[in-house]
């Protein structure tokens, strides 16, 4: 493999996978701590009709309309979930189950009807992503990494994800202490006057953005896995929130890189002539990682618990 082919194929695709993983892992911490991981599942499915409608209306895969559509759909889903829960006086889980599956089904039907008319977007892409389509055509060699003209030509998915990583990372850094408090003691946070509603809807909007930025490249299932697994793994390994955050970020990015390498380049290097689905491989790896932590984590793992203080 030459430098040029690496830079054109594996570098952008692998980096996109890593960035999608790190973005989801960051947000996942707050979901896992607030016991709202399934909100992430719900939002990542519910954004679909928003994306498809934006796509059908604008006729392009441009980032702007899709992000807007996803944010609108995410917001609508959050409001609907709350309405159904209150009116029906049912638990939040069931209310989410109704709303997100309905929105996802609507998105699928819109997609298939659109696809029947020659629209270039399909359900497979939504579920598994199209990492192999993330190409960087500009570079001829390593020098391209320092060449502004070539860098400006980086794939759109990659740039969007990088910008979102930066933006959401900065927001989290700026509001770290209040965010931490709402996770640790929501009642105290509300009593101190922190706006619980603003934080909740902010989180939902961030999730919608992360879901739409990631889904095109890696699919909605990887989003669910990455929201849950790195943060849950880190939660089993440490009690401190800041350590948990960095650990989940590292584990998420690591899963992304390793999973991509195992799925695409490794079989090719071994001369097998085929490759596996990278998004699926990353999700399986993260699940495996969580499974290992559940069994073996030094203090909170099942084996340590059995040995230390029998339940």
């Amino acid at each position: 493999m030459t430098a040029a082919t690496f830079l054109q194929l594996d570098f952008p695709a692998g980096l996109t996978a890593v960035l999608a993983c790190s973005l989801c892992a960051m947000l996942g911490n707050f979901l896992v701590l607030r016991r709202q991981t399934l909100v992430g599942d719900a939002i990542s499915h519910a954004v679909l009709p928003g994306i498809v409608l934006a796509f059908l209306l604008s006729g392009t895969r441009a980032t702007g309309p899709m992000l807007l559509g996803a944010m609108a759909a995410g917001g609508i889903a959050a409001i609907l979930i709350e309405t159904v829960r209150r009116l029906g006086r049912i638990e939040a889980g069931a209310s989410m189950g109704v709303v997100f599956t309905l929105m996802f089904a609507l998105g699928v039907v819109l997609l298939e009807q659109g696809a029947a008319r020659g629209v270039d977007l399909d359900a497979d892409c939504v579920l598994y992503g199209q990492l192999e389509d993330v190409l960087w055509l500009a570079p001829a060699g390593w020098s391209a990494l320092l060449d502004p003209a070539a860098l400006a030509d980086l794939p759109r998915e990659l740039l969007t994800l990088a910008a979102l990583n930066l933006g959401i990372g900065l927001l989290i850094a700026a509001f770290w202490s209040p965010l931490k408090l709402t996770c640790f003691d929501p009642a105290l946070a509300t009593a101190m006057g922190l706006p619980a509603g603003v934080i909740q809807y902010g989180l939902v909007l961030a999730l919608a953005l992360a879901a739409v930025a990631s889904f095109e490249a890696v699919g909605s299932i990887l989003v669910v896995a990455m929201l849950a697994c790195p943060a849950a793994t880190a939660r089993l390994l440490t009690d401190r929130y800041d350590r948990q955050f960095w650990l989940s970020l590292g584990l998420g990015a690591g899963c992304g890189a390793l999973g991509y390498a195992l799925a695409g380049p490794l079989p090719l290097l071994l001369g097998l002539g085929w490759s596996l689905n990278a998004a699926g491989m990353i999700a399986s790896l993260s699940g495996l990682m969580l499974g290992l932590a559940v069994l073996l984590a030094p203090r909170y793992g099942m084996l340590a618990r059995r040995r230390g203080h029998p339940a």
Partner: protein
Amino acid sequence: MSMEVWPLDVWLRVAEILTFRAGHNAAVVLAGATLLGIAAGVVGTFTFLRGRALVSDALGHATLPGVVLAFLLGSALGLTTRNLPLLLAGAALTGSLAVWLVQQVSRHTRLAEDAVIAGVLGGFFGLGVVLLSLVQSLPTGGQAGLGTFILGQTAGMTRGEAWTMAVLAGGAALAALALYKEFRLVCFDPDFARGLGWPVALLDLGMLALAVVVTVAGLQTVGLVLVVAFLVIPPVAARFWSDRLDRMLWLAACFGGASGALGTALSGAVPDLPTGAVIVLVAGVFFLVSLLLAPGRGVLAALARQLGLRLRLTRVTLLAGAVRGRPLPPRGVVGHWLRLRGLLDASGRLTPHGRAVAEPLERNLRRWELALRLDPHAVPDGTRWGVDPAERVLPAGLLARLDAVGDSAEAAR
């Protein structure tokens, strides 16, 4: 947007399928899908009331690796065509494994159930996708239609496959009804059930096992991604109509069965519609109707209740104000109405008839005002302040105190 592009003959075709005139195969598929919907409604009602609604999300997604592994095993054994019982057995195996994992991990670690559900769902489905891409890369066999299990596609379903679905679904529904008494107690009062010495954990497992059977039966029709919707939407829609378990079960079974039948017919009549998504959307229509129109919990009923309360409270304050010698100008709908009824005259003063109506209302309002001053916490929830007759809804102790204070105030005056 799809409605206007469907011409009349599509609807005729839907009617044809629904009336069993579209051939034997379509008839068996339709019957199977209806039974599947009934089973999903019944089993889903129990899992919903037990608070396990989203466990079925993990369960559904987790069947994918099982299906693909079974397919790989089948091709290793030399079975060329896809062997449905083998695939469904694989699905049941990994689905059950996922349910068991969710239960074990959320019980024995610090992780909450939601994180475990999402982790198991993502991990298992990811594994399934990897295996699926492996199958695609194999020189022989190809995908063999495994992709249709993901979003559901009844087109091309054989008669035998439809029978398998019908038998599995019917069995699950019957088993759930046979365990009606046990499931009811486990849903509503698990501690009492435990006190009676019932194996609650085993019953929980049995309930989820029935959910596994429904999921597996529905793989070809609703598909594994959306099967959770089939298990959740009909019960939640039924919940809007009734609090009673037996009525909920009937309604959920009807909603589920009708969605299964209509969805299958629609997707059979229109090309390029994944059956699962259509079935879920039909169920969604039942849900929306329930959400809007159900008496009691529905949106319209809630709005009507609120409006009625506001009108009655305005009437009471207007009439009581007139009794107290502070006649408010009778503006607004309520004022005009009171004048029309002959309770108030044009200047907003009470007519003799109006006084007879207003004085008891004013006495009642005075009691409510006093109750709020004396002991607001003793006012029961759900009573309508100033509107409900105080002597009927307030507790006896509070009423006695109200009367004592009221008498002394009267004497002082």
